[in-house]
């Protein structure tokens, strides 16, 4: 039977399919949890409570969400230009370096209100700079972006280790960390900010960079669907030959898209360095760049989808940590398995259930009509 148009109502495509995928991931996770002799329902209960209900849990979930929104948007923007940016990890790392360097240099002289835009700009500039080189190599030399961005993740790690152990380390101590930033340079925590309005909130690492993440969602939506540049990016992404025919320069567009992508990933540094750690240190990117790929895939490269997928992964990270905390049988590796299954079902196997779903929606059409 020929696929009758492959039509699936939009809501089924963007709401139902992802839900089925996530549900499948949880069912398989449940089987694994049962296989190691634990109660899967208890695990789900702890994960949900741990992600949303415990003191400060929601804050932690949203703190992870903030990182995933940045890296998810980064992957999505590159994806619209037909580029698979695997380098979000390195771009986030270097973006954080930009934030750290700007804040370390200026926290003695600038007030917060001036320091904040400077550090945000530094994050974007450093992240964009780190993505510029792979973008340039792709556009001008044809070096595959997947390979070069992966390589740049390692170069970023090497550069950070060099800087943190040789240059920026606070002398006379073991830990490769810079000095702590002056307190006025810190991005206020959400529980502090809510406190200004008399709202009591539990302490958590969630800070005001969440607002910036949401603003970035709106900006990316405007950029991709409501500007000339966004149109160019999408055109290059879907057909380079047609783009050239339309008078678009693919090389320029690729470089610009990669720079925007890298800049967005770099904002992870604002959340981590200015918002939570308050000093430069190693490994603060902690895989958020890689998870951003899954987030973008799951969110169908749309800001709304990315926010929802980020929330899911934020809840998985925080709920998973609580699960490991509550019960030693849930090792961190098992949490990784659960997260991996979600990525597997919503990313790699994202369209596995699509044909079934299409058949399901095709069925109500009476045969007589279908014949005609």
């Amino acid at each position, binding site marked *: 039977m020929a696929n009758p148009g492959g039509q699936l109502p939009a809501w089924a495509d963007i709401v139902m399919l992802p839900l089925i995928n996530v549900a499948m991931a949880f069912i398989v996770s449940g089987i694994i949890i049962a296989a190691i002799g634990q109660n899967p329902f208890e695990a789900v209960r702890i994960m949900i409570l741990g992600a949303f209900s415990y003191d400060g849990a929601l804050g932690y979930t949203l703190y992870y969400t903030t990182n995933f929104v940045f890296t998810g948007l980064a992957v999505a923007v590159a994806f619209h230009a037909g580029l698979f940016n695997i380098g979000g990890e390195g771009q986030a790392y270097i973006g954080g370096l930009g934030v750290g360097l700007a804040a370390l240099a200026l926290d003695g002289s600038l007030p917060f209100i001036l320091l904040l835009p400077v550090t945000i700009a530094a994050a974007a500039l450093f992240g964009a700079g780190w993505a510029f080189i792979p973008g340039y190599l792709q556009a001008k030399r044809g070096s595959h972006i997947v390979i070069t961005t992966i390589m740049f993740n*390692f170069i970023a*790690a090497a550069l950070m280790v060099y800087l943190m152990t040789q240059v920026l380390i606070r002398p006379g101590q*073991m830990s490769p960390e810079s000095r702590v930033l002056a307190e006025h340079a810190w991005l206020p925590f959400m529980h502090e900010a809510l406190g200004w309005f008399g709202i009591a909130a539990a302490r958590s*690492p969630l800070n005001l960079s969440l607002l910036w993440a949401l603003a970035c969602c709106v900006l990316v939506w405007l950029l991709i669907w409501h500007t000339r540049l966004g149109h160019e990016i999408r055109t290059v992404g879907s057909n380079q030959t047609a783009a050239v025919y339309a008078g678009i320069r693919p090389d320029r567009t690729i470089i610009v898209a990669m720079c925007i992508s890298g800049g967005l990933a770099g904002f992870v540094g604002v959340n*981590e360095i200015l918002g939570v750690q308050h000093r430069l240190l190693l*490994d*603060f990117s902690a895989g958020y760049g890689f998870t951003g790929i899954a987030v973008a895939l799951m969110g169908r490269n749309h800001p709304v989808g990315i926010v929802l997928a980020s929330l899911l992964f934020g809840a998985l990270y925080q709920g998973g940590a609580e699960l490991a905390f509550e019960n030693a049988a849930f090792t961190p590796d098992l949490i990784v398995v659960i997260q991996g299954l979600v990525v597997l079902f919503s990313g790699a196997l994202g369209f596995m259930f699509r044909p079934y779903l299409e058949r399901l929606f095709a069925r109500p059409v009476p045969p007589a009509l279908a014949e005609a």
Partner: protein
Amino acid sequence: MKQGMAIFALAMLAGAGAASAADLKPAVVFDMGGKFDKSFNEGVYNGVEKFRQETGIKYREFEVKNPTQREQAVRKMAERGSDPVLGVGFAQAPAIEAVAKDFPDTRFTIIDMVVDLPNVQSVVFKEHEGSFLVGVLAAAASKTAKVGFVGGMDIPLIRRFACGYEQGVKHVDADADVYVNMTGTTPAAWNDPTKGSELARSQFDRGADVVFAAAGGTGIGVYQAAKDNGKYAIGVDSNQNHLHPGTMLTSMLKRVDVAAYNTFSGARDGKWQPGIQVLGLAEGGVDWALDEHNASLITPEMKARVESAKQDIIAGRIAVHDYMADNECSY
């Protein structure tokens, strides 16, 4: 029946310690390497497991997966009434410091870093002294006067190992060559046996015939390469002599297991003290390993040499330069 007796005996034992056991709720927060890293974290795990088996007192545990979880985990332990809370690794110092201020009645211990608060015990090791000793042995065992060092992640702590080792080698033979390679710059470098084996082989190709690995799980590959090429290897942190008898010249012991065990048992017996504990050769915190697996490799002269170096360091006649004092290996 035998089993019944054993359970009865255990119950009696548990009953004897019940008063204190009921009060003590120890907790440990492992760092990003994970508790089965075959090295540092696993040393702590062995220590706390030994405590659990001996006393029957259970402990809470958590393995952090990103920097933000450090404070989250330590704080949660304190909130749940755990006491003492053991933080593993220098990276947890800021977390311990922040939480210890908020929970002045909870006892905290941190390994590998100093946190100066009235309710924190800091345990640090003089890795350079232990590395010096294995450097002495490496130089004494080498026929080519060339020895190697394979580090894990390139951080000051590992350079401290490398620097102490180099000094030990030069103490025996001032003209000896020491090849130093680091496995990588990310935490993955702690668990990359393939690369460890490649680095060791490249050092053998340059003439080295003894290699010291301070690289966590990466060391496994280094030791295998040494065995395959008929060279000597030196283990680290735990006594790893048993891995390849005949190949493992010795191991540089860093007794984090003892430190972890002492933290919990000290807290139980009321002997836990805040402040700094510096564990060097004199305190038995670091040492070289001699057991049945490597006894045939260590000649009486080598043993005499390393023991005299040990006595000299303890007595202060040899001052081993600490890389971390000035971030340079100048001696």
